[in-house]
């Protein structure tokens, strides 16, 4: 089955309002894997999950390229993750996630941390609300390995709320005003945070719910800004 090309012109950015470049220069303490959550939407006629082409994910390859057949390279356009694929037990996924976090940080063995707990639950369902949408959704954060995976999933979930025609405006927008949106989350302390600042595993451990909100409402939303946001939840 041929995949469908994503219309690259329709870029939804779930980073700081105002532009990706600015977000990168915003000077916030950003973990190297932090990315602007770009929700690129397909045009009409998209086929099922397995056929969607997305941007390549951050690489975790540590192994030297050996023994691979000459024509066996990474596929030119990597496929999206299907739920529950590859068929690896949740327990194994969680154990490996915990260990890869530990190895990356190169710290001494430490007591169980929030990061460890992130992987230790077999599922981490959180509600996802989008301002203006008639009902909420739920996602299992443990099904994803990165912010990119999550953004792809969110895009698909809320794609029915796109406005605009097929030209250039298949953006995920607020259904009422047509404005750009950002993705925020409520953490363990009850604060509303911008998605993307902290390492993925730490995010999974502390995220209680997600909210896709209008960019305009998110102005002033910065890491650890308590006062302005509490009223909005």
């Amino acid at each position: 089955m041929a995949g469908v090309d994503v219309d690259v012109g329709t870029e939804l950015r779930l980073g700081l309002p105002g532009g990706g470049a600015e977000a990168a220069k915003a000077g916030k303490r950003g973990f190297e894997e932090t990315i602007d959550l770009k929700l690129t939407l397909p045009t009409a006629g998209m086929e099922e999950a397995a056929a969607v082409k997305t941007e390549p994910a951050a690489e975790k390859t540590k192994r030297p390229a050996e023994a691979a057949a000459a024509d066996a390279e990474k596929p030119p356009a990597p496929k999206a993750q299907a739920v529950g694929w590859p068929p690896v037990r949740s327990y194994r996924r969680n154990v490996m996630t915990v260990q890869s976090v530990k190895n990356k940080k190169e710290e001494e063995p430490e007591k169980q941390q929030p990061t460890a707990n992130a992987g230790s639950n077999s599922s981490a369902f959180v509600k996802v609300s989008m301002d203006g949408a008639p009902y909420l959704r739920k996602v299992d954060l443990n099904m994803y390995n990165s912010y990119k995976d999550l953004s792809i999933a969110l895009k698909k979930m809320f794609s029915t709320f796109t406005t605009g025609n097929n030209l250039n405006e298949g953006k995920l927008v607020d259904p009422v005003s047509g404005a750009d949106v950002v993705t925020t989350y409520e953490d363990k302390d009850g604060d509303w945070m911008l998605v993307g600042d902290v390492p993925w595993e730490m995010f999974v451990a502390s995220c209680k719910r997600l909210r896709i909100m209008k960019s305009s409402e998110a102005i002033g939303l910065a890491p650890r800004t308590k006062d302005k946001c509490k009223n909005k939840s």
Partner: protein
Amino acid sequence: MTYFPEEVVEHIFSFLPSHSDRNTVSLVCKVWYEIERLSRRSVFVGNCYAVRPEQVVRRFPNVRALTVKGKPHFADFNLVPPDWGGYAGPWIEAAARSCVGLEELRMKRMVVSDESLELLARSFPRFKALVLISCEGFSTEGLADIASHCKHLRELDLQENDVEDRGPRWLSSFPDSCTSLVSLNFACIKGEVDSASLERLVAKSPNLRSLRLNRAVSVDTLSKILLRTPNLEDLGTGNLTEEFQTESYLRLTNALEKCKMLRSLSGFWDASPACVPFIYPLCHQLTGLNLSYTPTLEYSDLTKMISRCVKLQRLWVLDCISDKGLQVVASSCKDLQELRVFPSDFYVAGYSAVTEEGLVAISSGCRKLTSLLYFCHQMTNEALLTIAKNCPNFIRFRLCILEPRKPDATTNQPLDEGFGAIVRECKGLRRLSISGLLTDKVFMYIGKYAKQLEMLSIAFAGDSDEGMMHIMNGCKNLRKLEIRDSPFGDGALLGNVAKYETMRSLWMSSCNVTLKGCEILASKMPMLNVEIMNELDGSCEMEENSVDPSRVEKLYVYRTTAGARDDAPNFVKIL
């Protein structure tokens, strides 16, 4: 035979090796049914919803060992939403009321609460063995109850469960009088353990043969424990990442060398490569080795260890071993019977160092191979043909090519011929998982040749209903069929409805079955439960092309004498 006294008939029955044999003799006549049921000691329930617990305990009041399995297999991969079911409570309660002689309970993919564990601990005075695999819903407090009240506990085996950590007190809850432990596996417990308690427990358990620790146990504690267990046969290590201190590791080697009976090793976790040589003295006697949770060991560490394990029969590794490493396995481990190669990177577009070449090498060096689970990023028909010819004794063959629908890496053809060769050559094949690009043809081969097949797992395969029909009509011994993301619809679902009565269960998700088709099935086959799951809460990805809103996202069909279950959540509809 009916003229023999009951005791004699019962004695004859005791020689019957399998559940199905005993089931068969119970059908001969009422007398035999009675004798059989009262003398039955071991009962296996493959699907907890196939029969009511009360019925089981009423029929077999003297059962000593009960095994119950809950959720469907694909629950392992998060395809079954939480709160689906599979509760252990009703089983433990029923047994507590009617079978006080119960000694062993084994459960897989079930939801077990602390209350149930407490009830279990208090209800069966002779309780000896608790084995929980891939279960959830309980905490270390429930384990504390088991430890405190089961005075004759021999086996506490917790495999890959999701256990809530409420502190280390459970390990200290074993009373001093409990000296009967033979097997203790707490590798999946996430929290700290109290070393002193652990050492005390081991010291008073002279019969300990199998011990699997969790990551919280230090090298020094491990060494101390091993000095007390010279007869240990199976060990799961604790933490091997500590700052490398030669003294600690020397102590460990000394302790390990005393364990002459040690045959099986697992754990390792994020073991540092520096610690590996300290295991070398043990390698020549190992028959089982599980390094599949250890991404920190690279190809060279792995091969140095494995090349010494000349008696190895069972090996679980990660794909960082690479094809070259598998060649080392093939030349060193001539007795290998079971191999599992797991992916270290779950992203399908990622890189796997393992290809068809590694498997071909294994098949040519390890001719006794009967059981395989192999994750790789490519495969070819030619390789599969070679593998089939080299190892015709496969009983379990599970191949997972990470990218769905990937064709033969050299010819770009579907992999029908390769899998066809497997089912043709391996006449004893009982379990098969297929992957890669596959057309209806592969199903034609499977239906034609895989006559002993009991379990088949299909993903992203086939072209039409014909594919599934080949299976339904051809595989006479099929018990479990699980299918995802394949174009099989109502025609296939309804093509051979009588078949479902001979099977344990059918799972279909992201296929083309509709509500109408399921309703027809339910009405034609009242002895089946037809469960459909359509969640609106996002735990399954919403299909872009749900043009047909009556399409059923997840379907689970199973035969049952219990009728519709009353514990189904609101997202499950039983037709």
